[in-house]
């Protein structure tokens, strides 16, 4: 006869309410883990969408994702001439605001040279950009459809292709367009003063710069050789795809993970305290029943079992409901929530451990209950 289960059934309403409350709390913990994984995936999304072996950036910079980088517009030609480089392409990156269906979107515009490296590797719909002007490839997340027209700067663009899951570190959608369009847009959207300066031709205008050059390297030439070659130009640095990935994980994701880890730890501790308090009050409520059980000869293991099983049942149901809620509602959440089975399993283990630890207080009280309390009127 399972006493824990019978007691719960006796006060089912109270138990369900407690579980629901707990499920919200544990749901937030699960969401945190999902956000962390989502952020990791987001951070690497643009990098992995780009089919390139090496990234040539401003000397000393760890750009173009983790840091700002500017290289002269003719860098691509320099790079393309290096032995071992098969093809190279210029890239620009800029963040703009865009109005779509009354919604203000923050988007990252990637300008690349059609036909050269830098194009999105996979399209889910439509085609790559063929004409050098006024065509766009957008991410599904923007809500744009193939064939739709979008006003950006002074021009109107047509969406010709769609990507899926190509976003920036901060979750903004990425739009691809031809390099010339992107540079024009940079000029159009630049602050008026700078634009006036540029129009007067007083300085090299923004159109003479790009943010990085990406290159595909012959499989017979190690990237290190190419890196040494390029480093001869003092104004350039080279990063391999793998280095970019480490950079993004180390500098950007690590900070985010520490924040999220802190929140998760605090929330888990809060859950532990709450479970401990619930178990403690449940035990206090049952003091007399526990005394009676001891008096009629029930062993401690029956009584400890009652308390620990209730704590576990509460924690586990809370966790299951919480996780289910996250699965149901993650679509409406503004950031990507990536639920990995290993994370869920890990959190489940944590919840079980927390429940066991939290029931310690109740168990202590129960073990100490004096059986003679059963006699007291």
């Amino acid at each position: 006869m399972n006493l824990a289960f019978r007691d719960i059934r006796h006060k089912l309403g109270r138990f369900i309410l407690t579980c629901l409350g707990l499920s919200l709390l544990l749901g937030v913990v699960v969401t945190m883990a999902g956000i962390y994984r989502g952020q990791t995936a987001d951070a690497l999304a643009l990098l992995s969408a780009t089919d390139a072996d090496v990234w040539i950036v401003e000397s000393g910079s760890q750009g173009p994702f983790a840091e700002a980088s500017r290289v002269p517009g003719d860098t691509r030609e320099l790079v393309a001439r290096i032995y071992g480089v098969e093809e190279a392409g210029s890239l620009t990156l800029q963040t703009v605001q865009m109005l779509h269906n009354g919604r203000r979107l923050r988007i990252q515009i990637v300008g690349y040279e059609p036909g050269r490296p830098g194009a999105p590797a996979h399209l889910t719909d439509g085609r790559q950009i063929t004409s050098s002007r006024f065509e766009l490839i957008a991410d599904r997340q923007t809500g744009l459809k193939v064939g739709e027209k979008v006003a950006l700067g002074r021009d109107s663009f047509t969406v010709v292709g769609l990507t899926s899951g190509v976003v920036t570190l901060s979750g903004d959608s990425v739009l691809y367009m031809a390099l010339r369009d992107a540079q024009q847009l940079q000029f159009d959207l630049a602050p008026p003063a700078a634009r006036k300066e540029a129009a007067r031709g007083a300085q090299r205008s923004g159109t003479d710069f790009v943010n990085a050059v990406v290159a595909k390297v012959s499989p017979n030439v190690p990237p290190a050789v190419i890196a040494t070659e390029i480093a001869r130009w003092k104004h350039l640095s080279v990063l391999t795809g793998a280095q970019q990935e480490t950079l993004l994980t180390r500098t950007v994701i690590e900070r985010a993970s520490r924040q999220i880890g802190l929140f998760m730890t605090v929330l888990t501790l809060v859950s532990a305290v709450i479970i401990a308090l619930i178990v403690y009050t449940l035990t206090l409520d049952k003091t007399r029943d526990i005394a009676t059980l001891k008096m009629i000869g029930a062993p401690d293991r029956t009584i400890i079992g009652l308390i620990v099983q209730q704590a576990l049942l509460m924690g586990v149901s809370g966790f299951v409901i919480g996780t289910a809620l996250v699965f149901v509602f993650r679509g409406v959440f503004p950031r990507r929530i990536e639920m990995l089975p290993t994370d869920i399993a890990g959190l489940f283990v944590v919840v079980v451990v927390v429940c066991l630890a939290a029931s310690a207080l109740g168990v202590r009280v129960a073990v100490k209950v004096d059986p003679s309390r059963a006699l007291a009127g």
Partner: protein
Amino acid sequence: MVETKPADALVEIRGISKHFGEGEARVDALRDVTLTINAREVVGLLGPSGSGKSTLLNAIACILEPDGGWMRLDGEVVYDNRWLRGNLRRLRLDKIGFIFQSHNLLPFLNCTDNVALVLTLAGWKMDAATARARELLAYLQVEHRAAAMPGQLSGGEAQRVAIARALANRPRIILADEPTAALDSARAGIVMDLLHKLAIDQDAAIIAVTHDDKILGRLDRIYRMVDGRLAGE
């Protein structure tokens, strides 16, 4: 202590004492208590408040360790200036049944399961325990309430279910603390008749602490306690 055990002595106590506190706060709750209770007897334990009745009952129930003395329950010496048994709860489960003033049924188990629980604790299979619980409820004439939760019972019904639970493991010693205090005199009479019937049917000794004048006439013997001492029968 060498002594021949009378054939039907179930509770034998020699020179048991117990005090609480020290110095000015010292209370001698039991002073050199000696008594014998035989099978098929219903014995009353009377005395003013604070005279040590509950303390004595707790000592017999093996939930309170005396300062010293000797105690034999159902033929087994359980205390000789120290406990002689490691597992006192098992001893209670096997030898002693309890009837409480307020029935103390577990609120989350129905009547059958309240009775069956004691049996499963003693190692019975659930099916057999349930069957025996039903029998006991029938014996106490509350089988019609077998599926009810304790909260739905009247005081008299609850006390009868509690008595069924006390009997489940066929203990030969039944300890009752104010078993009729919560009942009116008609129902108190029924419960006392029942205790007599039990004492005979189960060959058991029943010790009832009571303040209840209306049941005095229904006790076989009465021990009076004053200030921790037994003041004769």
